[in-house]
């Protein structure tokens, strides 16, 4: 028996973790900051991709209200973070949204543990 959703949620959570760590490292200066920025962007888009993949795969499946709310909040947070970075407010609000996104992924994992 192979359940897709816990695997997708797990991979998404791992990329969100890498995204969070690289985001925390963005305060560093110099050449290393360039790598951290690329990693942060790459893993951010990857975790957004897995979030969207979960939504798409779930369309024909059973929805729990908690999961629906979590995924909607997650996508809104991603969009907000992209917007905040675009308007050059990333340094001030980026970390708050990043932490909220990480908490959102925690809920996604929790929902998928016993309801595959």
């Amino acid at each position, binding site marked *: 028996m192979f359940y897709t959703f816990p695997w997708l949620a797990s991979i998404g959570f791992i990329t969100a*973790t*890498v995204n969070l*760590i690289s985001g925390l490292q963005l305060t560093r200066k110099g050449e290393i900051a360039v*790598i951290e920025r690329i*990693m942060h962007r790459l893993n951010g888009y990857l975790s957004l991709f897995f979030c969207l993949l979960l939504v798409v795969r779930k369309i024909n499946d059973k929805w729990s209200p908690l999961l629906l709310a979590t995924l909607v909040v997650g996508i809104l947070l991603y969009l907000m973070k992209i917007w905040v970075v675009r308007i050059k407010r990333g340094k001030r609000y980026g970390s708050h949204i990043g932490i909220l996104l990480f908490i959102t992924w925690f809920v996604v994992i*929790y929902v998928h*543990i*016993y*309801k*595959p």
Partner: protein
Amino acid sequence: MAKTFLMVFSFCLAVMLILSAKSQASTIHVPDDYKNIQAAVDAAIPGDTIIVASGEYSENLVVTKPVIIKSKNGHDTSTVKALLPSAPVFKVINTDTVVISGFTAAGSANSGIYLYRAGKCEISNNKTVRNGSGIVLSLSDNNHLINNEIASNEKFGIYLESSGANTIDKNTVSLNNDKGIFFNLSDNNTLSENVVSSNYWDGITLWSSNYNTLDGNKVLRNMYGITISNSSGNILINNSVWRDIYVLLPVILIYMGIMLYVVERKIFRIIYFKE
């Protein structure tokens, strides 16, 4: 003489036609043909199908003949609540080949679905919530419980007492206040591909139950996973028992995230700085 013979022959033919029509299985619709499900069951003959439209019904059903009771649109829209909380919502007694499919059974201090001396019944696609126990089989053999959702009951999710050769598969049994699945003096049952999670006490318990097969069940986040006591000859294959998965899984995933971060940084350093 010929006229009398013709009349007798016609009469016999008419009687035979009426009897054969009566004995053919038919479909009864609730609430179109009968206002409640019990009235439809009482009126049905063995082999009849009762189709129940969406809605909430307050009844304690007693089924004593082989009939098929199905909801029209599944358990999300068809709920049967116990009229008398002390009695089961569905009670199948002393009969075979009953089908109960697509209902939410709720509000009984006894049980959602109760089979007593019943055989070859199919209980499928139902949801039993907030009852004493979810599904109870007593002295019942060769039944099939498939794809049911059994949650938030006061005692057990599925309880088998002195019942054998039943097949219980692809059910979700969660958040019950005692054991998830409990076999008591029950032999030769097959329990496969069930998800048993977040029950207050044991996930699955076999008590004085022999030669049962537990295959491919996921037993997660219960106080104890699978407990076998006073039993022998039971076969356990491919079952996943993770008691603390709720705590462990996120920790493992975060650890994997940190590892991936380190590896990624090494790779990018090699690419950008040729280190």
